[in-house]
Every structure is written in C-alpha cells, then in structure tokens.
C-alpha cells in the first residue's frame, strides 16, 4: 500500500494506523510546543532521530548537500532542548508566544520498512517584542509506530516563504 485509503488509514508493520491517530499525535505535539514543554517534546523522538528545516530556496536536496536553517541530529536536538530550557537562550527569553494550526494531514507508506510518512500543513503564529508574525509551510515527517505511540524518526518543517520576513527567526520549534 503506498497511499492512505479513503478512510485515511494505513498499515505499517502489521498494524493499522489511522489518520485520527496521526492527527492526535500532531495536535498533542502542537499543544506541547505552545505550552513550552520541551521535555515532553523530546520524548516524541526515537533515538537517532533528526529535526530539519530547509532554507526557503529548497528544491528537495539532501540537507547534507546544501545549506539549511536547521540540520539537527539527535545530539543537537538534545542541545537545542537544553538551550531552550535555559534562561540564557536570549532569543527566546522571554519566550515567544506561539499558536499552531495543523491541517491537511495525509498518510503515506514510509520508504523504510516499518515507517510512515506524514504530510501536513502548518501555520504557526508567533508573538514577541510587540511583533506578530506567521510561519506557514508543510510537515514532511517520518514516524515509527511504537508501543508508546508514534515517534519521530525525521521531523521536517518546510517553509512556504520566499525568505524569512523582517524580525522573523526560527529560535523556537517550527
């Protein structure tokens, strides 16, 4: 099976994952991030997972072959979480206030056995320093179903912008 069927479910490693389950996973993550609960967020990654944000000129290359905004391996995700929890993460102290909307969720079979690819749209609103900006784009995630629920192997946010507008930055999680 390469595409979710009409009811939005897909079989991965002998188990049926529904779109509802995937949506709940993404919504729960949005709540975690908006609540600035980075320990809970880190729990959503399997060991060895990656977090990526390509640049706005992205045309599908591997992030190892070009520049990017975020190219985190597992250790860097850990460092990023540690940084964001510190009072010394000046770009996020005080924290940005964010509000996330996730929609257009679709499921596909992952390239690797036992994985699932999620494509979804996001809008993140962010308020800080008297500024209010929006970040829009697509999630292209790879997740694995585990006993404890879905876990990220790759969490990738692709921006729909031509460039980051004035005052915008990716110091929080997109």
């Amino acid at each position, binding site marked *: 099976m390469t595409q979710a069927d009409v009811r939005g479910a897909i079989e991965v490693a002998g188990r049926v994952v529904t779109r509802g389950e995937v949506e709940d996973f993404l919504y729960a993550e949005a709540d975690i991030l908006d609540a600035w609960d980075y320990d809970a967020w880190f729990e959503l990654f399997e060991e060895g997972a990656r977090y990526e944000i390509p*640049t706005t*000129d992205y045309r599908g290359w591997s992030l*190892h072959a070009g*520049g990017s905004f*975020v*190219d*985190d391996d597992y250790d860097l995700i850990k460092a990023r979480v540690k940084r964001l929890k510190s009072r010394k993460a000046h*770009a996020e102290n005080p924290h940005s206030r964010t509000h996330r909307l996730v929609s257009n969720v679709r499921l596909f079979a992952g390239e690797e056995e036992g994985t699932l690819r999620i494509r979804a749209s996001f809008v993140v609103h962010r308020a800080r320093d008297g500024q209010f900006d929006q970040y829009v784009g697509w999630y292209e995630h790879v997740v694995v179903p585990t006993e404890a629920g879905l876990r990220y192997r790759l969490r990738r946010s692709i921006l729909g912008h031509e*460039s980051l507008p004035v005052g915008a930055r*990716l110091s929080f999680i997109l």
Partner: protein
Amino acid sequence: MPSEVSERVAEPMLVEDWERLTFRVNREAYRSPELFARERVDIWLRTWLYLGHETEIPEVNDFKVRTIAGRPLIFCRDADGEVRAWLNSCPHRGTVLCRETEGSQKRFQCFYHAWTFNNDGTVAAIPDNGAYEDIEALQSSMMLRSVPRLETHEGYVFISFNPDVPPLLEHLGDAADYMTMIEQQHASGVTTLPGVQLYSVRGNWKLAVENAMDGYHFSPTHNTFVGYLRESGFAVTDDDQYAYNLGNGHSLLVLTGHGGRISMVWEPRFGEAEKVRTEEHLAEMRERLGEKRAHYVADESHILFVFPNLLLFDIEGLSIRQLEPVAPGHTDVRAWQLVPREEHEESRALRMKTVVSFVGPGGLATPDDIEAYEAVQRGIEATRGAGELDYSDMSRGMRDEVKGVQGRSIDEGAMRGFWRHWERAVGGGLEVSGERPERFLEGRELA
C-alpha cells in the same frame, strides 16, 4: 520603529578622547533616515559592493536575481561565459525584466511590450519595430543597462555604481589576501551551495557589522552554545584572539581556540574518522602551501569584514554573509555556505550540520546575535534627543592601543576603525581630544 522624520541629527557623530580613553558613537547613526539617505549616496553608490560568488552561476546562461543597495539586479553569466550584472529594469519603460529569482536563459523578455534582450545586453527583438524612424539607433541605445563597474577577486564578484571607483584590489587592500586564503584551503578550491539563508532583521546594518567584530559578547550572548561545545569536549577560551583594522573600513578577527573548523581544526564532536581526514588534509596543505602559509590558512579562524556589505566567517565551516540595508532599522541578510569543491561525503555532511548548528536564524547561536542587535535598535530609542547621553561607548581596548599592545578580539578596536572609516565617508563630525597614538590603525604583518 521610528518612522517620523527624526529631530535634526546632532553632531558630532564620533567623539574620541585620548586623555580619558573613551570613544563614543552617536546613536543617531543607527536610526536617522537622513543619515541612511546619506549612506546610500556616500557609501553604497560610491564604493565597491559584494554582488555574489561566481560559483552561484557556474554555467553559461545561469542567472540569479538580487537587490543590492536597493537596486534590483540580474547577476548572470552570458552565452559567452562572461559574468555580468544588469539593472533588472526594461530600458523601454522600466518594468522589472526578470521576475524569476534564478534560472538559466539566453534571453530576457519583458512581459509588458515583449521587448527581448540577449544576456550579453543586446536587443534581440522589438516587436512591430517598423513604427520607429531609425530602428538601429534605437536598438543600440536600448541595450540592457549594466552596472558601471564589475570586478572579481578569487571568485567574489563586486560591483560599483560609481564608474570612477578605484580598482577593486586597491579597495580590498589587505582584505584581499584573506579571501585568497579561503580559496587556498582546498586544492580543489571552494564553491557556494544552494540552501541560501534569506532573512531580515529589525536592526541597522552597522549593528550587524559591529556584532561580527565583537568578541566581547561571545561568552555572555552565546552562553548556551559555549555550554554545548564544552559538553562535547571542547573548552572555548579568549586567549590568542586578536582584532585588526585592515584599512578602507575592512576589519579582521583572528581567533584560535575558539571552536573547531571542519578539515582544519579538529574537535571531539567531529569524530575520530574526521580526525584522520583532517590530519591528511593538513599534511597536503603544508606540502602545497609551505609551512608558514599553511599555518595562517589552517590554524586560525578568521572573521573578515569587507566594507560595506560582505562578511566572511571562516569559523566552524565557511559562510558568506551579505548585508542589504533596507531602512535605518531593517536589514536583509543573505548567507551562503562555501565548501571545498571536492570533499569526502561524510566531511561534507558534518560540515553542513556543524555550520548550521551555529550560524543562521535557526542555529544555536546566531538567533542570540540577532536578538542582541535588535534589542540595541529598540533600546537606543530611550536616549533619543538626550544630547550627551545619546552615545554608545566603544572604548574597550584603548588603554592597550596607547601602550602599543595589539588589540584583542574582546576589545572594540576593530569597531572603532570601522566607525572612523564610516565617518570619513558620510561626515557628521569626528571630535578628537588628547594625543592620538601612532599605532592603532595599522594592519597585520603576515611576513
């Protein structure tokens, strides 16, 4: 953001006192629309500006569209392989000619009345040209408008809107050799990659320059990044880090012990395989460049500022950063990664990850830099119109300057050099009291 026309700019812009060892910069310099307009004319339309790197347009007919000094340009390689910079504006009635951001094409066609131009600037077609009296004269007078000057050094393409600007190498002076050092880092030379960080900051362009030349902020501002380095087995120190004014507004930080650089200075976080590759590369470099030159190229990190819009970060990996002032409190930034043309696949992956972990608006360090100078831009509103109080202090290290001791990267000497050059360009008054030492403006001996 202040949008009202500011109160008259109070002079002087710079106050330098060699008795009290103080150097102060008038904060109007960061926010006055009047000064911004003066900068446009006296700096941006007068001197050499960094346009882009040759490797961004490697093949004939490749082009990129880019705005420099507020002017839309087409940066292209024409059908004969010549690098060109055209004003991106139709000679007919001024329409933006190329509305793609990049691509490959031999001709540019204006959509308005369909005039078509070859990428060597000549007119390819003017539809319905029977209506003109002397079509040949019209066609030759309607060639694409070129920037008045274009010169290249080590692949870095510079333009000037001033036809009488001195030769590029004269402008670059001592900065030229540091650009050569980057090219010499790898036998295969270096090339830019796609994945360009395009972002904008709510701060004056000069705050971005200051920030790059300011080693003093490194520990407090980048506390979380320094912590990450320490945990990965590398302790950052301030030792043996110096700042130089290279003349013509250019400046340089020379850093050792600041952090690793892929294929040059190994750190534990790069892993054992990379250690072996680094040693092999260093041996090859000593062979190719000689012991002494290889030392300058390999052992030091450099942050080079080429006045007024180019920053080269030879730290972690290699980044080109270009500054484009849009308004007094708004700067567009474009950043490319430079890499060896030929590189082991694992080193390349490590390089990209390592560079991005520090630089750019999604990294673990640059967002704090941006936060710092955006906060300056907001904070300096507090003293607007407050005369004596409306100055920023950049005195750090003057005591050593008087003693003839080389300025350190954690001093503010490179900033003072930048500001003196800026003041010579735009005016506004430099008030000097006390006896100026001889030594503080000199460059660096590489003998």
